[in-house]
């Protein structure tokens, strides 16, 4: 009977190990979500990270209510980073603040939550809440200049940066990786060259990303003078992605039965025709999955990007601008500000992205397998 007991024990230990694995995952996810969830809302996804100040021009209105002001906005004093500021609590329906414009004529409607620091040349902080409206209403001008500070704490710039880096790295790495894989599986004879290429891709896969960062920083940033930029980051990442894409594509090309190739060649189709018409269509789902996996890798990368794309949290105007991806930002806020909540909020978004990517690749595999 001792065998039965031993077996039971082992089942127990095995079950326990799996429970630990799943438990760890739940713990990590739980930690991240619980800490991050309260920060996440639509504003979080659509706002800038840094607060932004603008001087806007607002036409005054005449028929404001007795307890209101010429601008049609209701202000309250609030504390923010150790200072007292007036915050827009609500905006009247017909308020001209809704049609505020910045210099240059662009619209910049005042929103609830904005800080109003100055109206005309008056610093509002110098006045008590009871004085504020009369100060504003006492001004003569038809058109007032208002200093509006819109708080940040959003991740829009990081979302944009992440997307841009994904796009550029894929644009570079996909053709190279996929074509390279086609060569390796469809053309290469099992000679020295293939061995070297294979060794190279395997080595690439094993190099820690900090080394890529080291290389990217000196090569792209300093030597090629791309500076800390989306471009430097994306190019560094494309090298990181190469082995992922090559290997995955090779796998899916190899999964195409040889009988298809032979069938096509036997009909007198050329090699290229065979690849284009029979091999690639059958490998496409695997290749798409490879691409999705590499998106996951980009989203998760930090060390290499920190040294090449920098940490700026602005929406990049060109690929030569520096920009932080979500993950890089999660790192910097955790590290510099010790802001675990913000890091977790960004982490939540990242984990959700990874979940979506995982599900997507599952779905693609399922759908393609079914259609066959």
């Amino acid at each position, binding site marked *: 009977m001792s065998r039965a007991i031993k077996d039971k024990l082992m089942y127990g230990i095995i079950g326990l190990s799996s429970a630990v694995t799943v438990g760890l995952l739940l713990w990590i996810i739980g930690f991240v979500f619980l800490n991050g969830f309260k920060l996440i809302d639509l504003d979080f996804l659509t706002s800038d990270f840094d607060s932004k*100040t603008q001087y806007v*021009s607002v036409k005054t209105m005449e028929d404001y209510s007795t307890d209101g002001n010429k601008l049609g906005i209701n202000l309250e004093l609030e504390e923010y980073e150790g200072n007292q500021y007036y915050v827009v609590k609500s905006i009247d329906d017909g308020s001209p603040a809704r*049609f505020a*414009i910045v210099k240059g004529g662009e619209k910049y409607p005042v929103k609830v939550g904005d800080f109003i620091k100055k109206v005309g040349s008056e610093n509002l902080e110098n006045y008590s809440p009871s004085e504020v409206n009369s100060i504003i209403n006492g001004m003569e001008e038809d058109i007032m200049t208002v200093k509006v500070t819109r708080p940040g704490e959003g991740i829009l710039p990081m979302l944009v940066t992440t997307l841009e880096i994904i796009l550029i790295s894929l644009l570079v790495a996909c053709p190279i990786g996929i074509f390279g894989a086609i060569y390796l599986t469809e053309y290469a004879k099992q000679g020295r060259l293939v061995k070297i290429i294979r060794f190279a891709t395997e080595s690439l896969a094993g190099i820690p990303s900090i080394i890529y960062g080291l290389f990217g920083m000196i090569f792209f940033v300093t030597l090629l003078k791309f500076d*800390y930029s989306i471009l430097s980051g994306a190019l560094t990442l494309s090298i990181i992605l190469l082995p992922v894409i090559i290997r995955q594509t090779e796998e899916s090309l190899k999964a195409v039965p040889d009988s298809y190739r032979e069938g096509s060649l036997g009909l007198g189709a050329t090699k290229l025709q065979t690849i284009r018409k029979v091999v690639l269509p059958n490998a496409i789902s695997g290749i798409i999955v490879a691409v999705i996996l590499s998106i996951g890798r980009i989203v998760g990368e930090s060390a290499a990007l920190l040294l090449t794309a*920098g*940490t700026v949290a602005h929406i990049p105007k060109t690929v030569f*601008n520096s920009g932080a991806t979500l993950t890089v930002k999660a790192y910097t806020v955790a590290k510099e500000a010790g802001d675990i909540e913000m890091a977790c909020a960004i982490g939540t978004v990242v984990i959700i992205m990874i979940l979506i990517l995982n599900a997507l690749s599952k779905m693609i595999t399922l759908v393609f397998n079914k259609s066959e």
Partner: protein
Amino acid sequence: EEPAEAPAETEAASSEPDAPAELTGTVTISGSTSVEKVGVALAEEFMALNSGVEVTYQGIGSSGGVKNAKDGTTIIGTASRNLKTEEKEWGLTEIELAYDGIAVIAHPDNGVEGLTMDQVKAIYIGEITNWSQVGGADAEIVVVSREDGSGTRGAFEEIVDFEDALKEGALIAEGNGNVQTTVAGNPLAIGYVSFTYINETVKPLLVDGVAPTVENVVSKEYGVSRPFMMVWMEENMTEASQAFVDFAMSPEGQDIVEEKGAIKAK
């Protein structure tokens, strides 16, 4: 569309004090994390005044900023210390943006209220290792310092006089914020940060009986202070970057410096 609502462009511009002519471009700044809060606030205001300009600030430590300015990786570098001899040879233009104190901080629960400069030194070089040796509870001191390229560390080591003698095993935290959170999270830790980073999660200690306040720095009673520098290579300078520097040194800019907890340069 409400054409009636649109004020004339010139009015909007002219209502703004000292608005420079239409500037465009990107001003890239990198460097000290101590200067970061000041720098970001200056950038925000500058961008409000010049909607065509983008100013970016990357806090990577003083040495990084100086080196990036030299390489042109970013146009302007900031440092929270004076340039070192070697850096001086690079031909950088430098300007003192502000002054700042460095506060020695401990956990709010720590019983110790103040240290002498010698004690601070002894703690950082590892001669004093227990809080009881400086009047606290009997527990090992967890020493937190900054990374090697930090201007704060450079200035702190110079002022407290233990250059290149930091004790083994001291925790190294990257950036002021990181030191502050590490100390805030550890009842036995001691660290040092820029004045601009002090908040209620940590307790600033008196040094030689003097409280770390702006007033005490201005009156030179509190000795642990250093300048905030901006540096650049003239050949990299753009119109917008020059305008930013000018703005930072203008009275408005200096008000912002003060608002963020540093000390005006002039």
